């Protein structure tokens, strides 16, 4: 995955330009008064307290007491005063900040427009200059000031703000949402805690309606999520992590509701594999899609599931026509090759509507189009028949149309005395247009035909017959029919668009409601219940939520409450978890299950699976519900992620607390064990001198041993607690070795210690105490295992890339194969029947201490004379070479 060719150069560039540049953090709020400035100042104060050089560039407190209180302790940069149209204005003094060169500057209200005559017209440009100078900046902005959202916000708040911040600024910033619930904000507004300029009071009171605030809050949260996504994506691309896209080919396959589409999917997969390219499957949802039968929907869902299972990203795009949809998707996804099926429509249909293939090739430049033959035309005929039947509409439609025509005929008979005959024909336009607009094309044509017959029979001379004398009247009849056709076409199109718009509006509303529900959940359990309840409500299905556990998927929430799942369901859930793909009914895997399981994917892998089923054990999802489900799953995953992050933060605090306790415990144990030992050891020594005896000597030796064990246990506890505090200083290895040899003289009794270190061995940067303990343990170990009377050698050698310090003994050596294992906790050398005294901790401590200092340890056997050889390697980076000897001496 680290193939450098796969790095996205643009993303890499974006990252690179950020190095050496200041970092921007934006406190994003939904509306004024949420406490952005407060949050920024609090955060800034924390940084100040942790030693960062922080100044306040500009902060608008608007006289809020609690905000003003937070300014105390901050260094404020004096504002530059500017005269503008008779007013005295204070603008941020960017030169003063640049000259002061803080590490971090707090700059309130990013969207602010500077007074005329300032260096930059906009404050965000000032901020960019600060960032360029390598100064970090904290700033605040409200969501309605974000350029791309400005219109949207204005459309529902009816207030357009002139001061906007480009999205590019937000994209390079870390975004922190300052969020309070709308009710609370309204409360604050009522309490006068929100600053509103006098002249804008009336306009703003509309702005602060609950519905507006809710929508704004939603937008702020979404924008922040989007920024996080984008930054994550940049990171992934810059580092070419798994799932990043290749700069080269990108395949798109167009899927329809026919079984033959599966062939296309497989072909696309093969192509993608061959080109090592990512691929997507897309279904373009046109008016036609609304008329799909249940079977067709299921087939479409199957096709999509297959694509997704084979590794494609899938999407359903609503569009006026297939070509339009594909064209847009190709542009968005930057696809380079398209796979589509050859149309199974008749040559006549293609003559009339034009072939999709032809239009695609014509309209989409620069893209290779693969056309594969379609099969299984019987399926399509059946489908065609069905959609025709639906188009005929209900009998009631025709009855209503007929009744209206009868009514018009009666009215016409009354009016025929007063108005001209030609105008009577206009009366019939009313039922025709009504029928066409309301009931569709066929009812409209029916009305047109019936109207012309009625007009002909009742009004055109000779009345009472269907013959037409005057050719002019033929035109009237044709007009009626023509109007019916045109009106019904327009009406049908409008209706279809309205249906689509309505369903997408419903979907958006559902999503918004869903994320609100999830945000409200305080605990993981509540969140899981909320997900089940909401998905169940929105898709009218039964839902279960399973999380992975050691005994397979575990049911954690369900609606309606469900206490058990069958073996087959569990298997499907497990599969979905393991493969990160949907499984169960309606997918392409383990379809015997009544449930359909979708994985909840997050940046940190699969969290769990959501199961869906219908009461009647039917297909859990229609294809048009899949996009909604996907969005719901995304939202649910984000909510889970958020909760996991919160828990992690809590954990981190708890770990800190635990470490503090542990070290307190260690030092108290150390004190409690050491104090009596000190008395015993010193006392035994004294006793040995005054009343020497073997018993006293033995007790003294044991007490020494106990002392060493305690020391080792404490050392090990320190190693395992991690993060050993190091006190690194330039160290002479002669000193280190001499000290260790001196301190182990008792355990090395009967062995001559030979120090063989080159006289000009350089100094090294280590923690002398830790190195001392390493050497003591190695020498102790040698003393335990070396054959009596044999020498123990400490050897120091300069290698091209470091220094090795070895302790060699003559003894049984290390059993072959356990060279690495000897450093494990509580491992003792086996393979020899001479079990030696020792805690089994010594070598583990050597390894732990050495690694904490950046050294490595290894064990091997020396051949002549045979024995164990333990080596500590000091890397080149820790060696002090090139000292100016002349200057020193």
């Amino acid at each position, binding site marked *: 995955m680290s193939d450098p060719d796969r790095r996205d150069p643009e993303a890499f560039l974006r990252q690179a330009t950020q190095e050496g540049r200041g970092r921007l953090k934006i406190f994003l709020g939904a509306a004024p008064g949420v406490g952005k400035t407060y949050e920024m100042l609090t955060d800034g104060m924390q940084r100040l307290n942790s030693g960062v050089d922080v100044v306040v560039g500009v902060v608008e407190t608007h006289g809020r007491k609690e905000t003003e209180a937070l300014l105390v302790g901050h260094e404020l940069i004096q504002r530059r005063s500017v005269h503008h149209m008779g007013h005295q204005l204070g603008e941020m003094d960017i030169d003063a900040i640049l000259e002061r060169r803080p590490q971090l500057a707090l700059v309130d209200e990013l969207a602010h427009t500077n007074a005329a005559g300032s260096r930059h017209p906009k404050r965000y440009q000032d901020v960019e200059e600060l960032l360029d100078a390598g100064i970090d900046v904290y700033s605040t902005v409200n969501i309605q000031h974000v350029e791309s959202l400005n219109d949207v916000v204005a459309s529902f708040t009816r207030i357009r703000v002139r001061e906007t911040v480009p999205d590019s600024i937000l994209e390079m910033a870390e975004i922190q949402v300052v969020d309070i619930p709308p009710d609370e904000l309204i409360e604050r507004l009522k309490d006068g805690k929100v600053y509103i300029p006098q002249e804008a009071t009336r306009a703003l009171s509309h702005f602060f309606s609950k519905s507006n605030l809710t929508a704004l809050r939603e937008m702020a949260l979404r924008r922040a999520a989007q920024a996080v996504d984008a930054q994550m994506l940049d990171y992934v691309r810059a580092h070419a992590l798994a799932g990043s896209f290749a700069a080269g080919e990108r395949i798109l396959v167009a899927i329809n509701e026919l079984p033959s589409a599966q062939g296309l999917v497989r072909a696309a997969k093969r192509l993608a594999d061959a080109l090592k390219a990512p691929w997507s499957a897309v279904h373009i949802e046109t008016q036609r899609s609304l008329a799909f039968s249940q079977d067709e929907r299921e087939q479409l869902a199957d096709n999509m599931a297959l694509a997704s299972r084979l590794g494609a990203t899938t999407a359903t795009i609503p569009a006026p026509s297939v070509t339009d949809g594909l064209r847009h998707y190709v542009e968005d996804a930057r696809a380079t090759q398209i796979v589509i099926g050859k149309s199974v429509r008749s040559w006549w249909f293609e003559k009339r509507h034009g072939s999709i293939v032809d239009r695609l090739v014509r309209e989409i430049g620069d893209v290779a189009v693969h056309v594969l033959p379609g099969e299984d035309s019987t399926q399509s005929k059946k489908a065609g028949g069905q959609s025709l039947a639906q188009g005929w509409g209900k009998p009631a439609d025709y009855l209503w149309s007929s009744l209206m025509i009868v009514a018009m005929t009666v009215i016409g008979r009354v009016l025929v005395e007063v108005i001209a005959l030609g105008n009577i024909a206009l009366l019939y336009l009313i039922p025709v247009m009504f029928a066409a607009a309301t009931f569709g094309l066929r009812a409209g044509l029916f009305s047109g035909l019936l109207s012309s017959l009625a007009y002909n029979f009742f009004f055109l001379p000779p009345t009472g017959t269907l013959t037409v004398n005057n050719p002019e009247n033929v035109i009237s009849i044709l007009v009626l029919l023509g109007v019916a056709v045109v009106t019904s076409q327009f009406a049908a199109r409008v209706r279809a668009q309205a249906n689509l718009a309505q369903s997408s509006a419903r979907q958006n509303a559902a999503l918004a409601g869903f994320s609100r529900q999830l945000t409200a959940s305080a605990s993981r359990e509540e969140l899981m219940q909320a997900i089940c309840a909401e998905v169940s409500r929105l898709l009218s299905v039964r839902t279960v939520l399973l999380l992975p556990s050691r005994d397979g998927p575990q049911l954690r929430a369900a609606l309606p409450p469900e206490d058990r799942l069958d073996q087959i369901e569990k298997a499907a859930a497990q599969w979905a978890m393991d493969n990160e793909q949907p499984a169960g009914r309606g997918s392409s895997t383990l379809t015997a299950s009544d449930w359909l399981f979708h994985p909840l994917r997050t940046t940190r892998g699969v969290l769990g699976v959501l199961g869906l089923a219908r009461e009647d054990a039917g297909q859990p999802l229609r294809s048009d519900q899949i996009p909604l489900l996907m969005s719901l799953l995304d939202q649910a995953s984000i909510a889970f992620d958020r909760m996991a992050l919160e828990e992690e933060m809590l954990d981190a605090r708890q770990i800190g607390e635990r470490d503090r306790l542990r070290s307190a415990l260690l030092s108290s144990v*150390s*004190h409690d064990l*050491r*104090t*009596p*030992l*000190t*008395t015993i*050891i*010193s*006392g035994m*020594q*004294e006793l040995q*001198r005054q009343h020497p005896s073997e018993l006293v000597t033995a007790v003294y030796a044991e007490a020494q041993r106990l*002392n060493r064990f305690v*020391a080792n246990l404490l050392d090990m506890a320190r190693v395992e607690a991690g993060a050993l505090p190091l*006190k690194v*200083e*330039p*160290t*002479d290895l*002669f*000193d280190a*070795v*001499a*000290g*260790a*040899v*001196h*301190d182990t003289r008792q355990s090395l009794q009967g062995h001559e210690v030979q*120090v063989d*270190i080159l*006289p000009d061995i350089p*100094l090294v940067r280590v923690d*002398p*105490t830790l190195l*001392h*303990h390493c050497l*003591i343990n190695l020498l102790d170990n040698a003393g335990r295992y070396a054959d009596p009377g044999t020498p123990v050698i400490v050897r120091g050698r300069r290698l091209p890339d470091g220094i090795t310090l070895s302790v060699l003994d003559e003894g049984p050596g290390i059993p072959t194969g356990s060279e690495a294992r000897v450093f494990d906790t509580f491992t003792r050398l086996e393979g020899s029947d001479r079990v030696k005294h020792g805690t089994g901790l010594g070598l583990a401590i050597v390894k732990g201490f050495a690694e904490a200092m950046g050294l490595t340890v290894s064990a091997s056997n020396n051949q002549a004379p045979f024995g164990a050889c333990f080596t500590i390697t000091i890397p080149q980076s820790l060696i*002090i070479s090139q*000292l100016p*000897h002349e*200057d*020193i*001496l």
Partner: protein
Amino acid sequence: MKVRHKVLIVDDEPHIRKLIHAALTRADYATVEAENAREALEKLKEERPDISLLDLGLPDRDGLELVPLFKQQSDTTLIIVSARDATDQKVAALDLGADDYLTKPFDTDELLARVRVALRNRMTKDGGVSMVRAGDVEIDLINRIVVKSGKEVHLTPKEYAVLAQLAKFPGRVITHEQIMAHVWPGEKEHHVEYLRVLVRTLRQKLEADPQRPRIIGNELGIGYRLRFNVEGETEEFATGSA
């Protein structure tokens, strides 16, 4: 009548006080005991001890705070007696004016040796030492001459500065900072590595086996100590801190 030197033992553990008391009595010293900081300061005033043995872990006050108080309020020679892992604390205590330190658990002979050294340094005071013998090396601090086995050894001025600093207080630990402040006076930032290089060249000139130094002893993470001859015998001190 021989004057018995008085030693103040400050430790909160009665057993340790008892042990030190027994060892000191054996060597014919008079002892005074205190179990906390308050009592220690009182006894310091009343008893005017020659030597004070101070444990850093006291129940009522950080022993480190007592170090400057001891030096201000009396002319006692202060030896720190504390548990091992506290290298930082030892250096801090020495830099605050303590004269020596001893690590727990300690050998009572070692303790007595330290007390003897402290007393000798007390009698000669700063600069009072004119000639120090260490192994077969003689250091003449007045004429600034170093002789090894009867032959003069040529030292660079900086080498001599290091050696002289150690020889002024033979047997006592001198911290890196204390040495460097004399060798490189006026320099704000000191480089321990330079000192290490100087000590290495000194050892090559003075030691019989530079790989196993016996004259200039290293105190892990703290400083150096000169091992010197008393009445023909070399005082043997433990190296290292464990």
